[in-house]
């Protein structure tokens, strides 16, 4: 059998498995909005664990992260720190999000904000922020998927067809089984990607080196700068390290597709255990990734087909060094990483639009079945939009994607106030003033490429957001005990 056919068939087998899981999940579905959108708030520990870690790691972990190690060296060990921080944030924030979400029957982040701040402008602003900052991630993931299938088939499957096929598979199982299908496929994807990345890295290393010590000495001799900070291109200065630390921990934690995971837990105590153990998976995934990136530094000159870009270093090493079945297995793992993030974002955007926009402003008071049908239609519309964005790749998207990774941080002051009621004494106008100021700062810094003192635009936007929100709250005296009391009581009752 032709090598490309073996790899493509392995990927096809993976896609078939996800479709079967989606179909089985769909058969279990009840005609109930909470069941379709929030798994009936009864996700158990193992399912939620794998759903969180698989959603957190996207195509970036397989393609982008090895590229960072390959270009900038060990500075990217920062990833080890921000994944630990994700665990800390989960232990501190997630049980409170769960308790309040349950007490106030919230389905979306905007539900929680609207319940606390009680102002008509809060819901649409938070809903739009959630949608704008996450929808472009679908396009990034579908592009990654398209490249994987296109290259695995030796360019026999065209890029647009590859994008359409993989987007179609994800959309079909999300439409069929809702969040239950997303979670069940996440279990498969979470296990597959973890096993695949370790196997791929181990094979690449031990195919060319006798021991890890020899490998390390070879890297040190070939490019010592890769084993120092701030790295060969001076990229990982402390401000940049700190910026990545915050953006990829709090910035990702606050994204709606991660945020609603905490509503779905069976109990808040379970979320503490989840936070304490997720870094085991999240952090350790970067160990093989580190080896792959550094192996690229040493072996790139020996490849008969050098990678077209740094992002291609992992597939290029596999194609050259590993047997064809392993290449197929690992690239299916990369597809799993992309798909597990993409399906979550497809699902959450459908939820946010249906719950925060359609149900509140267009057609209130309809049946659960009606809203589920609308949610499915929204997924189809998102699928079409993502397909065209992935195929035509408009230039302005570069800015929007950069914006999306920092944009979720704009929710931070408001969330701090809600989860620790009265801690910042924010009222609705102060919250909105902070968001507008932070958003303006983010847009200006990103579009003009400004990084004052070396810190990323997202950090400056967060500082400005907090300062304006807290300053405005002191000036207007609109927040305080009245807003905080019901939330304080809810936290106390549930404790």
């Amino acid at each position, binding site marked *: 059998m032709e090598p490309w056919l073996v790899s493509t068939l392995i990927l096809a087998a993976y896609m078939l498995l996800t479709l079967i899981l989606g179909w089985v999940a769909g058969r279990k579905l009840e005609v109930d909005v909470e069941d379709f959108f929030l798994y009936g708030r009864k996700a158990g520990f193992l399912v939620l664990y794998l759903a969180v870690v698989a959603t957190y790691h996207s195509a970036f972990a397989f393609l982008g992260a090895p590229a960072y190690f390959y270009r900038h060296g060990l500075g990217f060990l920062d990833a080890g720190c921000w994944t630990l921080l994700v665990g800390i944030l989960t232990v501190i924030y997630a049980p409170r999000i769960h308790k309040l979400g349950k007490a106030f029957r919230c389905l979306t982040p905007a539900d929680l904000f609207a319940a606390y701040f009680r102002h008509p402008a809060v819901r649409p602003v938070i809903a739009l922020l959630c949608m704008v900052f996450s929808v472009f991630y679908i396009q990034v993931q579908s592009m990654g998927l398209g490249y994987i299938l296109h290259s695995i088939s030796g360019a026999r499957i065209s890029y647009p067809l590859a994008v359409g096929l993989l987007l179609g598979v994800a959309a079909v199982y999300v439409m069929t089984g809702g969040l239950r299908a997303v979670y069940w496929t996440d279990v498969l994807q979470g296990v597959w990607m973890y096993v695949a990345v370790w196997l791929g890295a181990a094979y690449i290393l031990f195919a060319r080196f006798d021991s890890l010590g020899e490998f390390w000495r070879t890297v040190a001799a070939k490019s*010592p700068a890769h*084993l120092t900070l701030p790295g060969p291109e001076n990229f990982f200065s402390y401000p940049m390290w700190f910026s990545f630390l915050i953006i990829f921990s709090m910035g990702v934690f606050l994204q709606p597709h991660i945020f609603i995971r905490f509503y779905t837990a069976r109990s808040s105590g379970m979320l503490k255990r989840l936070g304490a153990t997720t870094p085991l998976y999240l952090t350790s995934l970067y160990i093989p990734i580190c080896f792959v990136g550094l192996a690229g530094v040493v072996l790139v000159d020996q490849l008969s087909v050098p990678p077209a870009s740094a992002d291609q270093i992992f597939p290029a090493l596999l194609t050259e060094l590993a047997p064809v079945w392993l290449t197929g297995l690992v690239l299916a793992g990369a597809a799993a990483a992309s798909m597990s993030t993409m399906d979550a974002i497809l699902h959450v955007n459908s939820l946010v639009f249906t719950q925060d926009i359609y149900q509140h402003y267009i057609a209130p008071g309809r049946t659960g079945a009606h809203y589920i049908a609308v949610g499915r239609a929204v997924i189809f519309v998102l699928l079409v939009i993502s397909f065209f964005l992935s195929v035509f790749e408009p230039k302005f998207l570069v800015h929007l994607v950069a914006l999306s990774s920092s944009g979720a941080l704009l929710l931070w002051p408001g969330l701090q106030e809600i989860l620790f009621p009265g801690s910042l004494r924010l009222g609705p106008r102060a919250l909105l003033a902070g968001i507008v100021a932070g958003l303006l700062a983010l847009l200006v810094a990103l579009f003009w490429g400004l990084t004052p003192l070396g810190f990323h635009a997202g950090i400056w936007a967060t500082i400005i957001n907090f300062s304006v929100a807290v300053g405005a709250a002191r000036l207007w005296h609109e927040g305080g005990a009245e807003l905080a009391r019901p939330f304080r009581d809810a936290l106390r009752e549930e404790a």
Partner: protein
Amino acid sequence: MKEPQPHTPAEPVRRDKSVRRSLWLLLLLLVLTQYPLLTLFNDGTPFLFGFPRLFCYLGGVFLLFFVLFILLASSKE
């Protein structure tokens, strides 16, 4: 004769809270100071050069983190 004072649990609770707060701070400090700690050894014979040394260090930090973290996550708020 004085009535015996009723036992108040406020003091141990306060102590427990301050211990927990200190542990959280230590944990955050551990994460935030990794960059300066790693660069401390970057003086000509970089710390990161030695594979066993680097991974012993990282393994140690990771272990310390988990001990602190599990202590905190398992404590009742």
